[in-house]
């Protein structure tokens, strides 16, 4: 699956495209198929996201998960400060 992710322009928070807007939770991400670049362009122009990129994802029982470890860490927060994580239970190592 293809996922669109970026950062909130003002707060810098990691955000994920839900099909209707942006969520801080990767579990809300949707498969954008071939529309990712278009969505990224429109949303960035509207200042609703900063630096959007289309990444590979996997659909798991727990919901969408980024394929690459860098994006999984983005989804969960620093692995060495799980107290700051938005998803402390998120399994970084599982792809």
């Amino acid at each position, binding site marked *: 699956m293809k996922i669109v992710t970026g*950062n909130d*322009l*003002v*707060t*810098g*928070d*990691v955000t994920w495209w839900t099909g209707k807007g942006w969520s801080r939770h990767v579990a809300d991400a949707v498969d954008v198929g071939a529309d990712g670049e278009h969505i990224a362009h429109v949303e*960035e122009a509207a*200042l609703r996201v*900063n*630096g959007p990129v289309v990444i590979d994802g996997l659909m798991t029982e727990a919901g969408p998960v980024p*394929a*690459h*470890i*860098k994006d999984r*860490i*983005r989804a969960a*927060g*620093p*692995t*060495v*400060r799980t107290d*700051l994580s938005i998803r402390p239970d998120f399994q970084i190592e599982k*792809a």
Partner: protein
Amino acid sequence: MYKYDEYDQAVVDARVEEFRDQVRRRISGEMTEDQFKPLRLMNGLYLQLHAYMLRVAIPYGTLSGRQMHMLAHIARKYDKDYGHFTTRQNIQYNWIKLSDAPDILAELATVEMHAIQTSGNCIRNISADQYAGAAADEIEDPRPYAELLRQWSTFHPEFSYLPRKFKIAVIAADEDRAAMKLHDIGLQIVRNDAGEVGFRLYAGGGMGRTPMIAPVIRDFLPKADLLSYVEACLRVYNRFGRRDNIYKARIKILVHEIGRDEYARQVEEEFLHTKTLGLDAPEAEFQRIAALFAPPPFETGLPDEIDRSDPDFAIWVDQQVVAHKAPGYAIVNISLKPTIGIPGDASSAQIDLMADLATEYSFDEMRVTHAQNIVLPHVKKADLYTIWQKLDAAGLATPNLDLIGDIIACPGLDYCALANARSIPLAQKIAARFADLDRQRDLGELKLKISGCINACGHHHAGHIGILGVDRKGEENYQLLFGGSGAEDTSLAKIVGPGFSEDGVVDAIETAVNVYTSLRADGERFVDTYRRVGEKPFKEAIYG
């Protein structure tokens, strides 16, 4: 310590307001990210994995208690209650909101701090020996010269768009505590045969993708020529440094490609011109700066003896306390490397405590080291026990300076957008494996440095043991290097063999350490044994 004059303050205040307007225009959509990015980077604001990251400059690593309290305040008010001290003697905050950035810079400006030139292809924060002004072995305090270079380089119009970033370090002792030869320009204050004090200038060193040790360009440079000569060094680099390939744009590539002699010849030729431009500071201006770094009013007649009856305190003294040039005083190293901590991280409460200790016991002064620790430079020996007790209660008294537990680690893939692998969890696993302080002390000086990518912010090339994190088909992998040093015996570590998983590299280090203990001669450090016997016994033991 240096105090801003009206010009310094006006420059910093004006920059804050300029950036405030730039942020407003970005948030309102008047500027695109492509337009805004170079502007925010000029103010130390990066966009990292999880949020914006602000890097605050700490010139030559020197801070007052008031400034340190401000760093704690920013951590508390604008971030997640902690900061990360870096290998450039700076501090980084990992969770900054773009909308808060102008207010943060405004608050920093009230204590004579800023984030200018902590990013971009300009002359970065000038680093220096963390024991400057206190070390028993220094010729003179190098910081007035570092400050002179800071003023000269701030907003230097000719050097704001160099081929690549440019780092300068200044030291004043034979013992190199600032990795001086691994900088674009390294300056060592020396005394020549006539007894005059000047600089030995090195250029073309660096780590990163292509590590190189800087050769000597000028064996003796009179003090009065410092700025005009450094200007010449920069001009030659700015003119001929490569701009076609970011990986070949640092001065080290230029010096390597044209050769040390040709680079030095061109610098000398340029210097004939720059010396005529009136670039060097008038003596009165230099003396104004130097006076601000005058030694504090040390008391005389203080006892040199330390009551070592508390064994834990005695161990801490042996490991963390260094000789001071003034009788009755000592230099205290505060470890930011608790056994299972994050190298360089400190909470706002810890930052406040260190500030209080500096104010009460160290003439209101402290230093950040490139090894991500903090120094109280001027402490009465009679106060050491009290300081130790307070540090210990705050988790800041781990006695591991320069031991295997004193690991330098970049933020790595936990925070950094450029990283390929995590550094901090690996540092924690290694620290846990070698948690026994008696064992660490038996192993002696063993500098272990971890970078999460080839950019080498964790100085892995300069580690007695270095670790480089790489991405191997989407998985974190770690290359092991041996034999580096950033000290006066500067050398570049070499890759031992194929890389490892995170657990595998910890086992490999343990194996290497066991080889060292089986082969070491009296007084030999890990790196000494490695240099004497070569890589073969280490490689055989690790790879079979």
